[in-house]
């Protein structure tokens, strides 16, 4: 049973691949009915499927393919011209074949689909054109029963020959030949006797099948006698083998057999995950290497470490690309179905449309290839229905009667671009606006201020439809908005260009892979966010006074455009603790036709990030697409640009006007309301300061270095009125501490008093630069220290 399943799996995979190619070939065939090479190829597909399915006992499928094979075989021998009508039937039978294959895939049987109607049509084609004797065809028409009886004994008989000894075989052949001759004789007699004897003619079911075939091509069968006794399928097998050699040895280069193995997609996914981990580790290693380099500058082992790190990083990158490539599929897999679709659509719509494909070899990640199919179908249907005009209209406009839809794929940087062009009537912006107004999608005001690109973007609005009448093909107003969401799900963007009367061009820009992306890292206050680089158009540095407020929204001028702005902090509820500074950066985000300026505090840089999900617990947070782990081991959230643009519409605030540092200043009622922090790494020094200040009765908090002081400050348990800071400290020195503290709005006015043994002028200068207000040199008297502190905290005289 397992073995059967395995064979079945192989059969299905193979069949689906064959069928996919079949569609394309058939449409091609309709254009070049004389192309023998194509015909041979198509015939072989039908034949292969038939052979395999009969072996697997899929009788219905065998029955269907058998008749397809008949038709194609006739065409192959020039007995039948492929007309569009014939093609319709063949295509119908291929659809049935696909349906059967799908049923087999899902249920392991081919029951439940009625093929008889199609088989009858196929038979009529073979019957109507050739000079086959009518009675034989009629005999074949009351179909399945006869066929099954015919096919089964064939399968049963065959292995027997293999197991026979040469002598026995010889005898068997002899016997069969005699039988055959006897039968032929009987048939000849029957012909002579006409009518009634035909019914008597089939004495044995085995011969019925071959006789039907034989009638069609008696000549080739008669000549090779050893083949003759073996039943029909074997004969068929020999023909395709001969034919390509004979017909086109030069034209079709023998398909070079590619060395491939089939790998479970799950394994590739797992591999991809592992690579993701590796990339993270690599990023981390690079960061550590940088730190080490800084600390041990000039040491010999650094060079060695550097080498190792760069090799690891190089190999990781190569490995990542290699694994990515294993998941790549040519986009041709998707494109293949379009020639057939265009053909069907053009017949349905009574238009003449040609499809031009280019760049089918362009490769894309498997998951994207799977997702991209449906959106493309929608777009192409739309192009056929709304884009390309009817032949009459086209002629009237002086265009060629046949419309052309171009579908091409190519690489552009880290993205792949799929471009769909048509030479139809183009998008009419006024019409788009009017329709949208009618349906209440936009307001009059919006319509007036719309740019051309924005108007094109209207076709992606939910509920929008340009077709005045709903057709079978499109016009229901669903579709294009789904296209947009699907493409955006892939982190892709859509770009439309159109000229009225000349045509429309749509570009889908999609990242090569989903798991690892390039991102721009930005900082806001103390947080970092990653923005997919694909959506970033540019970044600009602006000063505050370049931001204007229009109707409660912030905007800026970007060259000749007005760009609406939103502060990332307003979207992600970031607390404003740090002072924003005079300048800010604006990241210009572009999604299709819409643009938005995102104000951030800092730009960190570009980095390759691995997308990780936030898990079930936190999924679906608006504006967040996932998370990534940075080189330092921290987690950085990835911005969902699509959602962010939506959210930006609801955010109302003047981003940078906000200076809410109104830390409630509580009235001091007793000396202990004053809180002072002492930062010094020496316990003795701290004790000396403590002794000097204790008499005042103020509250004292101690920290042993800059880091600790900063975290105490951030913890916010105390409201400090002043800090006494030593300069020489481990981990973080006094200067750094002072400049860190001064970054916070809240502590702008917190007096920092340096207490140090450094007496140089330059030291004093540095102290002032970093924001110290006083500079006390050790040793000092307790009274002096106390008085300096009192002065700086405005110590109330009454407490003294």
């Amino acid at each position, binding site marked *: 049973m397992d073995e059967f399943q395995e064979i079945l799996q192989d059969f299905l995979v193979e069949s689906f691949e064959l069928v996919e190619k079949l569609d394309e070939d058939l449409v091609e065939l309709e254009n070049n009915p004389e192309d023998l090479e194509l015909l041979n190829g198509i015939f072989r597909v039908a034949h292969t499927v038939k052979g395999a399915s009969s072996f697997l006992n899929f009788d219905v499928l065998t029955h269907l393919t058998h008749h397809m094979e008949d038709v194609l075989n006739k065409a192959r021998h020039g007995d039948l011209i492929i007309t569009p009508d014939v093609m319709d039937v063949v295509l119908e039978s291929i659809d049935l074949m696909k349906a059967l294959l799908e049923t087999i895939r899902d249920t392991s049987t081919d029951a439940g689909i009625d093929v008889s109607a199609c088989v009858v049509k196929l038979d009529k084609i073979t019957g109507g054109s050739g000079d086959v004797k009518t009675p034989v065809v009629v005999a074949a028409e009351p179909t399945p029963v006869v066929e099954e009886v015919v096919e089964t004994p064939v399968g049963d008989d065959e292995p027997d020959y293999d197991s026979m000894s040469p002598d026995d075989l010889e005898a068997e052949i002899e016997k069969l030949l005699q039988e055959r001759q006897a039968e032929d004789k009987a048939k000849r007699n029957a012909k002579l006797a006409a009518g009634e004897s035909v019914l008597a003619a089939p004495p044995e079911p085995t011969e019925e099948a071959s006789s039907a075939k034989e009638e069609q091509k008696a000549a080739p069968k008669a000549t090779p006698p050893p083949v003759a006794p073996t039943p029909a399928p074997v004969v068929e097998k020999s023909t395709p083998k001969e034919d390509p050699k004979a017909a086109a040895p030069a034209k079709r280069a023998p398909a070079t057999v590619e060395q491939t193995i089939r790998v479970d997609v799950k394994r590739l996914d797992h591999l991809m995950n592992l690579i993701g*981990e590796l990339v*993270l580790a690599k990023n981390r290693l690079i960061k550590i290497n940088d730190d080490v380099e800084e600390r041990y500058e000039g040491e010999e082992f650094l060079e060695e470490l550097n080498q190792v790190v760069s090799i690891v990083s190089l190999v990781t990158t190569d490995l990542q690309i290699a694994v990515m490539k294993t998941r790549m599929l040519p986009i041709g897999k998707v494109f293949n179905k379009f020639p057939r679709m265009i053909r069907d659509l053009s017949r349905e719509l009574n238009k003449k449309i040609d499809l031009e494909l280019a760049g089918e070899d362009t490769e894309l990640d498997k998951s994207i290839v799977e997702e991209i199919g449906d959106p493309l179908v929608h777009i192409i249907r739309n192009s056929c229905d709304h884009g390309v005009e009817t032949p009459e209209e086209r002629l009237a406009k002086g265009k060629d009667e046949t419309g052309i839809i171009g579908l091409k794929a190519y690489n552009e940087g880290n993205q792949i671009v799929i471009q769909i062009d048509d030479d139809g009537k183009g998008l009419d912006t006024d019409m788009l606006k009017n329709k949208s107004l009618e349906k209440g999608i936009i307001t009059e005001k919006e319509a007036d201020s719309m740019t051309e690109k924005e108007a094109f973007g209207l076709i992606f609005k939910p509920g929008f439809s340009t077709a005045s009448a709903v057709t079978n093909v499109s016009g229901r107003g669903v579709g294009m908005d789904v296209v947009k969401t699907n493409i955006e799900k892939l982190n892709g963007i859509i770009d439309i260009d159109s000229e009225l009367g000349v045509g429309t061009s749509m570009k889908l820009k999609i990242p090569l892979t989903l798991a690892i992306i390039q991102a721009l890292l930005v900082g806001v206050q103390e*947080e970092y966010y990653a923005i997919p680089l694909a959506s970033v158009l540019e970044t600009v540095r602006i000063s505050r006074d370049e931001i204007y407020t229009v109707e409660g929204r912030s905007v800026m001028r970007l060259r000749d455009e007005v760009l609406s702005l939103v502060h990332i902090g307003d*979207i*992600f*509820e*970031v607390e404003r603790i740090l002072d924003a500074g005079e300048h800010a950066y604006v990241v210009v985000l572009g999604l299709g036709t819409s643009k938005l300026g995102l104000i951030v505090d800092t730009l960190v840089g570009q980095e390759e990030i691995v997308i*990780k*999900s*936030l*898990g*079930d*617990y*936190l999924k679906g*947070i*608006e*504006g*967040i697409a996932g*998370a990534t*782990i940075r080189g330092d*081991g*921290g*987690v*950085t*959230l990835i911005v969902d640009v699509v959602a962010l643009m939506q959210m930006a519409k609801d955010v109302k605030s003047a981003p940078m006007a906000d200076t809410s540092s109104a830390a409630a200043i509580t009235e001091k009622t007793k000396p202990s309301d004053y809180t002072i922090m002492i930062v010094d790494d020496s316990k003795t020094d701290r004790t000396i300061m403590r002794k000097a200040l204790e008499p005042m009765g103020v509250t004292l908090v101690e920290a042993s270095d800059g880091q600790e002081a900063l975290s105490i400050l951030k*913890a916010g*348990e105390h409201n400090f009125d002043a800090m006494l800071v030593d300069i020489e400290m481990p981990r973080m020195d006094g200067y750094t501490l002072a400049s860190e503290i001064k970054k916070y709005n809240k502590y702008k006015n917190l007096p920092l008093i340096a207490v140090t043994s450094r007496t140089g002028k330059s030291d004093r200068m540095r102290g002032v630069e970093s924001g110290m207000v006083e500079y006390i040199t050790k040793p000092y008297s307790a009274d002096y220290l106390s008085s300096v502190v009192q002065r700086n905290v405005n110590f109330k005289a009454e407490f003294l």
Partner: protein
Amino acid sequence: MSDKLKQIINKQGDQQNVETDQLDDIVQLVGFVIGEEEYAIPILSIQEIIKPFTWTRVPQVPSCVLGVFNLRGAVIPLIDLRAKFGLQTKNQSEETRFIVMRHGDDVAGFVIDRLTMAIRIKKADIGPAPDTVNGDDTIIEGVGKQADKIITILKVNKLLERDF
């Protein structure tokens, strides 16, 4: 010699049997303190217990969800149980720990004030949640009675359930 060995082995075997027998009706829990109360969760639902480290805030979540942190390459949510239980938030101390709990595929880290100890408790000594706590909605699995105190045992699957 070999007799002795056999004896010893047999003895060990017996002991193990006894232990496994006991295991059947004994529940192993890990106790921890949040605010004033002591709680416990089954030891098997704990993936690990770690010292606090930095996490990344996530916007648009209730205040009890502090954010996400990196646990050896996995991004895991961090939930403050003080906030979840409606207590004042408190700064982390030396004793603060993250307990990473797992139930099926759901994993999350929980901030607790302090660990107490691993507790072995007989199943018989675990009573149901008080009647006042209603129905399936409770995150209380039961109440463990010990010599000198009672411990609230929490439902891990409820803790890991998204409730916003």
